[in-house]
């Protein structure tokens, strides 16, 4: 095989690999978090405390990270399109962690207020409102079985 042919084949392989990688990246979906290891394991009260004490510092630590939060269910909300949110309550009635559940979850309807649970999700930030209280929002949440 001539040197030119070898170079051509080399370039073709690189181009195909790059193309395949590009296509995979382009069509990549958000990962199902069921099998992804959490960056943080934390109790609901401790997480709320970190955000209420110093939102900036807590954002730097938790934003975009996968957090597994343990706590008591204060509310299970189903919207008119069938999507669920689970509210984990802290000691303070006006503070909570709100978990917007991934649509892949099918066992949410069985959950009830007062159940103790661990939920894993991506932290999208902190909302503090004078009237409505403060909430940490987790997206793409899944129930962590163990």
């Amino acid at each position, binding site marked *: 095989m001539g040197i030119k042919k070898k170079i051509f084949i080399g370039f073709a392989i690189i181009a195909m690999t790059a193309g395949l990688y590009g296509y995979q990246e*382009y069509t990549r979906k958000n990962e199902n978090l069921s099998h992804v290891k959490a960056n943080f394991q934390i109790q609901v009260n401790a997480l709320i405390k970190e955000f209420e004490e110093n939102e900036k510092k807590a954002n730097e630590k938790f*934003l975009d990270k996968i957090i597994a939060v343990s706590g008591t269910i204060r509310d299970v909300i189903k919207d008119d399109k069938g999507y669920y949110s689970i509210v984990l309550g802290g000691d303070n009635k006006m503070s909570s962690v*709100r978990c917007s559940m991934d649509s892949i979850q099918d066992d949410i309807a069985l959950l009830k207020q007062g159940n103790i649970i661990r939920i894993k999700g991506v932290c999208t930030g902190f*909302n503090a409102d004078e*009237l*409505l209280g403060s909430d940490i929002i987790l997206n793409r949440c899944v129930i962590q079985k163990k």
Partner: protein
Amino acid sequence: MKKISLILFLIFGTGIFLRAQDKFYTKTGTIFFKCTKSPLEKIEATNRSATCVLDTKTGSLQFAILVKGFEFERALMQEHFNENYMESGKFPRSEFKGQILNNNEINYTKDGIYKTTVKGRLQIHGETKDVETIGTLTLKEGKIIASSGFDILLSDYNIRIPSIVSDKIANKVNITIDCDLELFKGK
């Protein structure tokens, strides 16, 4: 003494009660947007954690969302949206504060569908602009469904579209709001 306490309760206690009765809210409102230019590429996302407060007495209406709460079908698009366009690390929230202009035409004690005109200030990407739009309030069994759809221009909010993708991303973004509001029962 008891009489005075009772009078004070009637004056202040019921006042607080009535004020709470005027407000409706949600923390699970849906905000959807699309800015698709090319039919081959779907550029749209949904945020299901919008907070909304409506004061039925004054017609004051507020929305707030965390920008990172928008979910796209494709992960790469979501990353670009947050990092390159909305700069959500720098501008984490978007909010609207406004007023229902025809609030006195809405009978909040009677179920029905009421058309509304809403005017206020919309803050996106650190820029605030006046917006006016029409929407509906659907009153049903003690709950209120607030919905609206309107267009904004990305250029109004200092969001730049690189020329390399300008054939795919439209400058005009269509936003749809859908919030199921329930009575705020106080702290």
